[in-house]
């Protein structure tokens, strides 16, 4: 080989490396450009406005609606504490705290109830033949994609004073007076269990469907009883789906608005209704903003907790 060809080959090598680097850079740039419309829309109409909410939570409420542009931390204090009207001393804001507590309690109960009904349902679907499995799955998906409002309304029709259940009970003569079910915690919990159930069934189903039943056969082969097999083999293997389902049910429950609004009425408020109230009759936008952020923080804590539980589980299994 002559010097000349050596030189040109090293030059071409440099050029090749440069071209590759540039083409990779161009590729990443193109990918950002392609994502841009979606990012811009979401930033404008979902993520960005949250920043304004943070700002608003430090402003003074206006007399009628809106805000006055003076900085205050009073709103944040009023999220959990209450200033006495006469002597200015601080005490717990019982009205808020009881609503926080009701939201968390009802969300937990709903999550547990959806699990109690959801796990057997998911298991049932996953153990059907592949063909009929799709039909059962379809039957779960239909309510999932039907209007939340309509489904809540269906529950209302069932449990209101002149609703189907009370009519039936009076008709068979069990009671003379209608049993009050609307506008109670029971109504809200029942309604949320009903509307969020598919959100538990679907991820649990996805886990069970992946479950290798040879493992179950193995357990029985090694003298496990049905109960032991369920507890020691099936539940641990299905846990990721159960955790995903719990996230999908618990978190929307915390922020639920429509279902408690219709079934809980004005007395059984949940977090979402309390927030909405501040932008309606409450006319206290900064408090609404601060409450929104509080709800987001609680949701984040719950998410982190669930993720931690599931990753701890992964470590144990892996």
């Amino acid at each position, binding site marked *: 080989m002559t010097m000349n060809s050596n030189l040109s080959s090293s030059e071409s090598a440099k050029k090749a490396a440069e071209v590759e680097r540039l083409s990779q850079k161009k590729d*990443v740039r*193109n*990918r950002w*450009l*392609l*994502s841009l419309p*979606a*990012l811009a*829309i*979401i930033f*404008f*109409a*979902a*993520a*960005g*406005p*949250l920043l*304004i*909410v943070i700002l608003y939570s430090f402003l003074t409420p206006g007399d009628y609606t809106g805000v006055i542009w003076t900085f205050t931390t009073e709103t944040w204090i009023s999220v959990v504490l209450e200033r006495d009207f006469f002597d200015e001393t601080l005490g717990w804001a019982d009205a808020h705290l009881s609503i926080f507590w009701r939201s968390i309690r009802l969300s937990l109960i709903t999550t547990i109830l959806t699990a109690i*009904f*959801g796990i*057997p*349902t998911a*298991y*049932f*679907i996953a*153990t059907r033949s592949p063909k009929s499995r799709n039909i*059962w799955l*379809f*039957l779960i*998906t*239909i309510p999932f*994609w*039907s*209007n939340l409002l*309509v489904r809540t*309304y269906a529950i*209302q*029709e*069932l449990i209101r004073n002149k*609703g189907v259940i009370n009519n039936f009970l009076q008709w068979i003569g069990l009671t003379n007076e209608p049993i009050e079910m609307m506008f109670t915690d029971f109504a809200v919990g029942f309604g949320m269990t*009903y509307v969020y159930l*598919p959100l538990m069934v679907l991820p649990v189903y996805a886990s069970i469907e992946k479950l290798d*039943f040879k493992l179950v*056969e193995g357990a029985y082969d090694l003298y496990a009883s*049905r109960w032991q097999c369920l507890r020691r083999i099936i539940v641990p293997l299905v846990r990721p789906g159960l955790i995903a389902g719990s996230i999908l049910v618990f978190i*929307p429950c915390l*922020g639920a*608005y*429509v279902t408690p*609004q219709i079934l809980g009425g004005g007395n059984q408020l949940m977090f*979402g209704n309390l*927030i*909405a109230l501040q*932008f309606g009759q409450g006319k206290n936008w900064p408090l*609404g903003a601060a409450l*929104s952020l509080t*709800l*987001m923080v609680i*949701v984040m804590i719950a998410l982190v907790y669930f993720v931690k539980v599931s990753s701890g589980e992964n470590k144990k299994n892996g």
Partner: protein
Amino acid sequence: MARSSLFNRPFEIKRIPSFQSIALFTFVGLYGPIIILITYSFNSSASLGVFESFSFQWYITAWENEKVQEAAFRSLYLAATAATIATIAATMAALATTRTKKFRGMTLIFVIINQPLMIPEIVTAVALLVFFAMIKIATGYTGMLYLIIAHTAFCIPFAYLPIRARLESMDLTLETAGADLYATPWKTFQRITLPMIWPGIIAGYMLAFVISLDDVVISEFVKSAGQETLPTYMLGQLRRFITPETNAIATVNIAVSVILVSGFFLLTQRKK
């Protein structure tokens, strides 16, 4: 459980006692209220308590109600527009974030796109209320654009997910083969990628459409005066007085969802 001879049955590996009964109970529980609702929509009586005889009268009443008509058309227009924009944006984003080794900022893109799924809807709703109030005061514009862009934003993740799934299950070598056979990148996209992911795009569009059509919370907070959508109209009705007309509207609503979800199901279940 009617079957009593538990011990005479052959041992079934997959069977767990009582699970089947709970599952069937759950299905009855899920569909019972919906079926009752539908049944009463065909009730000729104005009373919601007793079923008198079969009649379409409430559907006619609803159809002749101008407010319902207007809200229904607004909902359809909104869903169609938002789903179209969302699907186009989501398709582009899905193309950008799949089938590549991780690049700088890819996780960020993913997080932003899925952000509407992670924040409680009521929080987004009030944030939009506050933000759009500012714009409304500044510009004086109170048209449909607010609703359209708000719906587009939360529709994007729903459109994105099936398209992304479709892209990820698509064999990368097909496009390589296209390039090998003298197709330019644009031709490859047109002749190979697009036809291959088309079912995913349609599925994404349908999901986005249903999600937009069903939305109550964000519409309720974003709408300007006189911009009722069908769900916000229904919410208003439920707060005041309920007539079987509401059942009729709800039934039509369910029917639309069933049709769209069936289409979605057929598209995604079909062998890839």
